[in-house]
């Protein structure tokens, strides 16, 4: 029988639809009986939405400015680096 801790281990798999039919059924049965796990799954789901929405994690402004400068220099000199594989 699936217990709360077992559910916590596979919670992301459940949220992302990565569980098989049996696993999904066990989680749903547990969730029907356990409000704490319903809260946990709801909040973990919210954390994934927060992350997706918080995609604005930017690179540092001074670093971006450095990149702009280096690229501008390379473009005006008409060269790009051919070094290395890509």
């Amino acid at each position, binding site marked *: 029988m699936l217990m709360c801790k077992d559910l916590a281990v596979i919670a992301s798999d459940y949220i992302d639809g990565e569980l098989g039919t049996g696993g999904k059924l066990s989680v749903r049965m547990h969730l029907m009986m356990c409000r704490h796990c319903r809260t946990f799954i709801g909040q973990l789901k919210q954390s994934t939405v*927060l*992350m997706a*929405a918080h995609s604005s994690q930017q690179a540092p402004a001074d670093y971006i400015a*450095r990149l*702009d400068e280096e*690229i501008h220099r390379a*473009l005006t000199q008409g*060269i790009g680096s051919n070094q290395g594989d890509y």
Partner: protein
Amino acid sequence: MRPDTLDAPEDDLVSRLQQGDAAAYREAVRLYTPGMLAVARFYLDPASAEDMVQDTWLTVISAIQTFEGRASLKTWLHQIVANRAKNRIRDRHREVALDTDDPLDPALAERFGDNRRWSVPPSARSSDSAQALLENNVLSDCLDKHLGQLPEHQRSALMLYEAHQHRAEDVCNLLDVSAANLRVLLHRARQRIFLMVEGFQETGEC
């Protein structure tokens, strides 16, 4: 389903990059650098990762002429960084050591009793939507802070999967991890964010 094909705006951006349009480079740098850094930091220390991403952009100036659009521009750029970083660590005979043994964060694991039920259950909090939560600037700053404190491997996986919306198989390829390890990295990172938001909502402090 997460697409990985060129859409119309990206097609236009590629054309402009191929023409050497400086404004297009500024746009592309802002769009794609955070993800490129996420890939590089998975393998390298932060300073080396920044240097590698800079070198990659300089390579792109000529390499973009050979871009055929078989994958999205984002995936192509991320793949270049991944290949270079993998070569770098192979040359240095290093390996990426992943902590994927335990799928539960220790701070969460200790909240279950011996009977495997919650001993310290999640606190019922307000039913604010994620969007409403994000409009709270203090929480948003707190999220930034905690994302910055995530172990580098978890953060890279989370950034590429959640924020940059790569498909799981693409993230596995970029980071050279198995699907099972990716699942653990994502789950551990989400638990950290869950714990952070829970703590913030209980105390109002980050």
